[in-house]
């Protein structure tokens, strides 16, 4: 018997577009009440996976069940219980804020008075009450995103799908969106999101999978992933451009052989040393007779996990 708390079950889930394989046989289980993330660079297959979960993209192969129903045969019934925040805003910019919610509520067959009631609560929630009668077109990007989130909640969904919820927003607007999503999570809404921002994943996700090239490279809580695939601290070093490579090489070799650095990553502009203790490592660097232009000791992040797993950086 499947676990009643498993809301989404995927196994060998595959999506091909002609010769191109966007999603390559992934498997995951998603539980009620958790915030689950797909982290990966553009083209990793995150959005294709989201569209399959949203029941608007039939899988090429594999199994995908959502709320105990088959994603292809019962897509309509599943969609009635999902909320979707797509990557690109799909608001009707010519209508008002309130009309957008009315139309959307009608799509779900909700009664007008129910929609009106929920609209006032949702606009309050996303802080758009004073714009209710305004046309959508002139709203800022952050406001449109919040309206899209309000719209996705009109049917009181059991699962909320968010595809790159803060891509393209300025830092302040991102924080407002994160705050609202965090509140939803507190209220027990199951969140599924894709992101290529590690800070977003760290802030919002209880559990996430790292996707690359259509496959899942690793999965777990942000903390678990960092513990498993990285060291507690990272020492970042920059050297003077003419002798950067030489100095980086020297330091990397010295610290790797002494066992002070578990791993080193040479990037174009800096050297990353994965170490248990950043300050001790920095002392060792100086002991080699090399002085970096700048240095930074920081805690490991999902970015480091991603670099370790794929050999590439997440954001470019």
């Amino acid at each position, binding site marked *: 018997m499947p676990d*009643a708390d498993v809301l989404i079950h995927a196994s060998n889930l595959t999506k091909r*577009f002609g010769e191109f394989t966007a999603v390559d046989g992934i498997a995951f289980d998603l539980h*009620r*009440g958790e915030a689950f993330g797909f982290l990966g660079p553009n083209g990793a297959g995150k959005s294709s996976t989201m*569209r399959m979960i*949203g029941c*608007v*993209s*039939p899988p090429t192969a594999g199994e995908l069940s959502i*709320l*105990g*129903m088959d994603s292809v045969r*019962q897509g*309509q*019934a599943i*969609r*009635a*219980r*999902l909320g*979707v925040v*797509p990557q*690109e*805003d*799909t*608001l*009707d*910019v*010519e*209508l008002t804020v309130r*009309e957008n919610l*009315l*139309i*959307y509520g*009608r*799509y*779900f*067959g909700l009664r007008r008075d129910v929609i009106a009631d929920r609209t006032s*609560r*949702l606009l*309050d*929630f996303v802080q758009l009450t004073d714009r209710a009668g305004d046309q959508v077109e002139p709203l800022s990007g952050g406001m449109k995103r919040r309206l899209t989130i309000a*719209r996705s*909640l009109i*049917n*009181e*969904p*059991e*699962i909320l799908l968010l595809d790159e919820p803060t891509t393209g927003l300025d830092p302040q607007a991102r924080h407002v969106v994160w705050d609202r999503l965090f*509140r*939803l999570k507190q*209220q*027990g*809404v*199951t969140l599924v999101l894709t992101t290529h921002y590690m800070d977003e994943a760290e802030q919002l996700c209880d559990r996430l999978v790292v996707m690359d090239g259509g496959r899942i490279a690793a999965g777990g809580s942000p903390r678990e992933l960092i513990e498993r695939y990285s060291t507690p601290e990272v020492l970042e070093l920059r050297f003077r451009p003419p002798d950067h490579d030489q100095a980086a090489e020297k330091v990397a070799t010295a610290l790797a052989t002494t066992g002070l650095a578990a791993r080193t990553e040479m990037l174009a502009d800096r050297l990353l040393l994965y170490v248990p203790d950043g300050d001790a490592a920095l002392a060792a660097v100086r002991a080699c007779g090399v002085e970096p232009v700048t240095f930074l000791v920081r805690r490991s992040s999902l970015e480091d996990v991603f670099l370790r797993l794929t050999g590439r950086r997440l954001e470019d």
Partner: protein
Amino acid sequence: MSSPAVAPGAPRTPAPTSLALRSPIQWLAAQWSLAFRALRFWLTNYKRTWRGSIYSSVASPALYLGAMGLGLGTLVDQHGTARLGGVSYLAFLAPGLMAATAMQTAMGEATYPVLASVKWLKTYQAAAATPLRPADLLRGHLLFTAMRLLMNCAIFLVVMTAFGASQSPWVLATLPVCLLTGLAFAAPIEAFAITRTKDSSFSMLYRFFLIPLFLFSGTFFPISQLPEWIRPVAYLTPLWHGVALCRALSLGVVDPAGALGHVTYLAALALAGVLVAQRTYRRRLYV
């Protein structure tokens, strides 16, 4: 925040949304209730622009009937109207223009608004994430197109009657005929429009399809005036069937067998369009 914005995702019994295993009437009602939800979107949108659209729906037939029907018509009538079937040019022209209006309305609805919904505004994608299916979106838009067809053609009928161009009470039956003519254009064009990523093909459609049809489908002169070799092409165009039937009704000279032929041809085209459009809608929205 005192009250939660949404109900916590506590377990609840699945909503009975299955459309299967009910009486055919309930099934049909459930099917179309979804299309009506999609129609409501178009109606909400239309609320902002309906006034302007009414002005042009009245002005356009008045200008055409004035300039061509009365102005040009005076000249035509002086040279004898035997080839028009013995009626005035105005009475000949008006029902043909009415069918052409149906074609134009259908074209207008089935091209740019469809591309806007799927490409520029992506409101179709927004709706596809709800219980609405691609076929519901298609039906909803066809319902709206049908409403616009009836509106425009009813206004045309009033204007044409005011010009004294309606010759028989049968002229009222031109309304359903225009609806059918319009749908015979709207459904196939919609099937095509949903597959487009740019609007450039629409101007080609207007230039090489709509305008030639408008000019050579018997609206302004009888097909018998065309060279014999090209007449079969004119008979194949859906507009000719609409024009011929509207004219026969307006003049009160309906031949039942001919009328049945026209209706069958137009209905077959509309139905084929709907069937193809259901596929192309699905293919575009369920990628």
